[in-house]
């Protein structure tokens, strides 16, 4: 069995009084891709935002239950540390518009005021851009602003930015929903390549995407975890009737 890196125990999330996540118990295996799928509004995004403690930034949002990273309770850690260990990429590409490509990649260090020697920074930038399959496209324009990049390139730049922090887990929140099919397939390839170095959680409402990229899949519906398991098994013989109906397009 795979080693578990991240665990949620009776995790519930609220917006004010409204309970949007209901007692989620999940274990995410290390260095695998886990897809979290389900129809809109089922709490997928809220779930991953609880994992890097972004959920609590919204006024009135609270959680109960616990999240463990390597058996360490993240609510006992400083959220800033949690977010450095668990990177995140958002639905819409959001590179920093005032910074060059180079500075965008190294932003996690610069904005935190961490000073590194020049050649160490260069190595981090080059490695991160290579990992996100962007190095060849931008190596001659590193010091130009990122705004001329295409949407897909911007998203890969955001992935590079997250990778530069050398996180243990990366959360991808519907990373391709704002992209065209070509850019989407490029990012999907990238996800599959990346799982050798980092654990990936990807939120998607696209079942085909979950099938293509993930090793494990969690299916959620209105805040509840319906089924979790091996992707190939879930897509062929799901245990739950609802999962089957969702996968065959009866709802969602």
């Amino acid at each position, binding site marked *: 069995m795979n080693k578990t890196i991240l665990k949620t125990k009776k995790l519930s999330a609220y917006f004010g009084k409204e309970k949007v996540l209901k007692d989620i118990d999940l274990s995410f295996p290390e260095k695998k891709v886990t897809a979290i799928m389900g129809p809109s509004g089922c709490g997928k995004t809220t779930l991953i935002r609880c994992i890097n403690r972004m959920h609590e930034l919204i006024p009135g949002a609270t959680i109960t239950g616990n999240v463990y990273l390597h058996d360490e309770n993240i609510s006992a850690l400083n959220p800033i540390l949690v*977010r450095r260990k668990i990177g995140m990429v958002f639905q819409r590409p959001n590179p920093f518009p005032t910074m060059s490509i180079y500075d965008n990649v190294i*932003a996690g260090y610069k904005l935190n005021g961490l000073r590194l020697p020049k050649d160490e920074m260069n190595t981090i930038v080059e490695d991160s851009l290579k990992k996100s399959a962007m190095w060849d496209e931008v190596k001659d324009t590193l010091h130009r602003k990122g705004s001329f990049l295409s949407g897909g390139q911007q998203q890969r730049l955001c992935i590079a930015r*997250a990778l530069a922090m050398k996180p243990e887990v990366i959360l991808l929140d519907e990373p391709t929903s704002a992209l065209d099919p070509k850019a989407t397939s490029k990012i999907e390839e990238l996800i599959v390549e990346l799982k050798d170095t980092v654990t990936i959680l990807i939120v998607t409402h696209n079942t085909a995407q979950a099938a293509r990229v993930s090793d494990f899949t969690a299916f959620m519906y209105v805040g509840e975890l319906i089924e979790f398991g091996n992707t190939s098994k879930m897509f062929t013989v799901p245990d739950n009737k609802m999962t089957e109906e969702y996968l065959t397009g009866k709802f969602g």
Partner: protein
Amino acid sequence: MRHTKFRIAANRIFQGIIIFLSFIIIVPLFLIILHIVVNGISAINWQFLVSLPAPMGEKDGGIANAIVGTFIIIIISSILAIPVGVLSGIFLYEYKNSKLSEVIRMCVEVLMGVPSIVLGIIAYLWIVLSFGSFSALSGSIALSIMMLPVIIRTTEETLCLIPDTLREASLALGVPYYRTILKVIVPAGFSGILTGILLSITRIAGETAPLLFTSFGNPYMNLNIFKPTETLPHLIYVYATSPYKQWHNAAWGASFILVVFVLGLNFITKILVRR
């Protein structure tokens, strides 16, 4: 058919009225500038810019003391108003819905409407009376209060236009809150905030009323902020209401410089906004 013709005609008339009225707005501004340039430009020469006012009856006096004084007062006002204004603007943006923000927003609106001469009286009571002397500092304090509402409002409005995703991007990298504000949000809104600052400076550059009983005026060069100081608007006021032809010319010259300065700032602001 007749209906259509009528509508087309009505359209034309309406269009004509709009264009005509818009044009009327330009006319006074144009005339004012023309008048100031025609009367003022003859007074301007190097001598006028770098020398002190000449004693009555002598030629070749200048307004160097007023130019320097105006700059001193603008700089002190800016030093006082910019940090407070920008930080308050950030506060209003960050705590949009708190009770305190609502109170501050209301105060800012009221402050916007307080007549400038009243601010002058307040500065007189607070500063001039307690220091026992008219001073550049007291004038600057009155003017900095005038700058605040403009800076606060533009800062808040600019920051509200910055997408939330940017802030999330930074927080998700583990960047602490204060660094996110200072290194991501403020730089992204920099040109907007700078625009607000420049606008507030144009607002105070020509103010006379608050300076009458604060910085007061001074025929000599003064660099001490605790002493009375001459300013361009005050000099214009004194010279223009005097009976001497020579002073009238100097007032025109000073007006010209003030207008060029304010228009220049406006122009820079426009360029920044376009960026």
